[in-house]
């Protein structure tokens, strides 16, 4: 992370989004909106004084997964790259109520700038790599697990933050009250994954991170940890071994789907606790287990806006919304659009080693293109039949690329081949059939349709000419 921030060849554009993309492999033009940070990047030293003094606290739903707070002027985390904060204008007291300006007063370098505006910059690139990642499954969509209703139902991402020494609890595993250490913890696998009601696919990482969470929770709290799983999927180097290590540590495994998590007690031992109701498929029994904490192993979903992003870059998504690779086995990081590559979870759920490998693979594909120095472009361009052209200019209006010019002296249209992308829109527009698209001529298409429509009979009709 630090390396990427420091590298002289990398221009870091954080708090930024791509607005539009045009052009083709080798020569894309990309418009990027750099959102206003309200902090002057050249003056800010990243000292953090503004954060310390900001009076506004909001729940951090991104980095802290909703388990912790941040201020309105903030850096997502202490080692953020770049170390420059942003003002979250939706929550900032100055931007919402018109007064405060404390950060401006305390900033030793006068870097705060409330008047900053979004800037648009245009960059020219030869290739594009999309590594836009995933969204965690929203556990509130499965109401019977009670996330959002029962305080002590957590998501796995919340637990990750809880276990982090720099997280909201300083690394302590506690209940929602912030102090009680759980004595019995249930981890429910496949929340949102492998479930026809939500996502049918396996999210690939949940089994392994659940094992890791089980190990860490047990290690830190000595709590009894129960894993409720469908199957344990541990395919990876040292993964199965890790599973066995966790088994040996005395972590419990129950094979079966959990029907519901409830706070309704059926007996004294359940009072005041959460109860996991489940089917134990290895004994064939319906059972209930009182626990103090429930951790939902949420799956991975495509980014909520993955379809719009795919459209922006001219690539496609699969039915779930993951970016579609050119070939699932032979070309896993290229897309159907030349010069656009995918890496990481944007293409489908995967773990860290696979994401890193794909990132490197995508880079290698780009390097191979750069190494070739040039790329073949459209040969199938439009061409004007000078004898037929009456110079009406319809094609000039229709062309999306301004690739057709009007030759004043000869009063005809002329295609500038270097600009023509071969869409053929001009052909559809020409009233005098004077313009045609190479490789997609009327003649070629008509013969193709003849073959398609009435087959062998064409041979007989052929002599009658076109």
């Amino acid at each position, binding site marked *: 992370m630090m390396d990427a921030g420091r590298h002289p060849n990398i221009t870091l554009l954080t708090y930024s989004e791509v607005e539009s993309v045009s052009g083709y492999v080798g020569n894309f033009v990309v418009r990027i909106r750099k959102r206003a940070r309200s902090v002057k990047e050249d003056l800010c030293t990243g000292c953090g004084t503004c954060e310390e003094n900001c009076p506004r606290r909001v729940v951090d739903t991104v980095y802290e997964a909703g388990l912790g707070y941040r201020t309105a002027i903030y850096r997502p985390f202490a080692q953020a790259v770049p170390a420059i904060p942003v003002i979250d204008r939706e929550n900032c007291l100055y931007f919402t109520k018109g007064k405060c300006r404390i950060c401006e007063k305390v900033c030793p370098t006068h870097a705060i700038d409330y008047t900053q505006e979004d800037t648009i910059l245009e960059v020219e690139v030869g290739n594009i790599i999309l590594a836009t990642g995933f969204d965690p499954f929203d556990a509130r969509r499965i109401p019977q697990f009670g996330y959002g209703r029962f305080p002590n139902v957590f998501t796995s991402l919340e637990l990750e933050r809880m276990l982090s020494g720099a997280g909201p609890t300083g690394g302590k595993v506690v209940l929602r009250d912030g102090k009680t250490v759980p004595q019995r913890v249930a981890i429910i696998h496949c929340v949102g994954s492998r479930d026809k009601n939500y996502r049918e696919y396996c999210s690939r990482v949940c089994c392994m991170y659940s094992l890791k969470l089980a190990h860490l929770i047990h290690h830190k709290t000595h709590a009894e940890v129960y894993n409720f799983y469908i199957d344990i999927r541990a395919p990876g180097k040292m993964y199965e071994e890790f599973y066995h290590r966790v088994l040996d540590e005395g972590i419990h495994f129950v094979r079966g789907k959990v029907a519901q998590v409830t706070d309704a007690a059926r007996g004294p031992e359940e009072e005041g606790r959460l109860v996991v109701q489940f089917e134990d498929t290895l004994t064939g029994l319906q059972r209930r287990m009182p626990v103090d904490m429930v951790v939902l192993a949420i799956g991975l979903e495509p980014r909520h806006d993955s379809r719009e992003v795919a459209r922006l870059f001219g690539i496609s998504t699969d039915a779930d919304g993951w970016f579609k690779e050119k070939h699932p086995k032979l070309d896993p990081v290229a897309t159907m659009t030349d010069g656009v590559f995918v890496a990481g979870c944007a293409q489908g759920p995967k773990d860290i080693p696979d994401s890193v490998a794909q990132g490197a693979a995508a880079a290698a594909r780009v390097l191979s293109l750069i190494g070739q120095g040039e790329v073949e472009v459209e040969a199938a361009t439009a061409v004007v039949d000078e004898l037929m052209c009456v110079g009406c200019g319809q094609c000039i209006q229709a062309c*999306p690329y301004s690739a057709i010019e009007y030759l004043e002296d000869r009063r005809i249209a002329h295609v500038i081949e270097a600009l023509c992308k071969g869409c053929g829109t001009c052909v559809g527009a020409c009233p005098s059939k004077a313009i045609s698209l190479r490789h997609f001529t009327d003649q070629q298409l008509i013969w193709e349709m003849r073959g398609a429509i009435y087959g062998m009979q064409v041979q007989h009709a052929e002599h009658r000419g076109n």
Partner: protein
Amino acid sequence: MSEQTYEPKIVGFLCNWCSYAGADLAGAARLKYPPNIKIIRVPCSGRVSPELVIRTFREGADGVMVLGCHIGDCHYATGNHRTARRMPVLRALLEFTGIESERLLVKWVSSSEGELFAQTVREFTEKLRQMPPLGLRMTSSK
């Protein structure tokens, strides 16, 4: 049952970037649709001139589909705007020449809409099956 002795011939002009890819996705997902449609790949729906559609009917098609990218998503920026503007005029022309305008289907299908493509083909084929053959092909040879 006896009404269904005839299978309509359908030609689909699909833009290479969205709809053709959508049809490919329908295949990759093994969605099923009737075999009546024969797909002709064009770079952009904007390439499909009114004359080409009329020619397709004259060559014996009972139905023509022109599918392109959604407006705003055209690989060629604005090629499909032209299609969108052209097709209503073409419909009027078809009616004028005695071809029911519903024999022409113009729709936007993206590369991720395999199911929409399959559904569109199913519905269009079914609709044409309910209509009599067009039989415009001008040849007597057999």
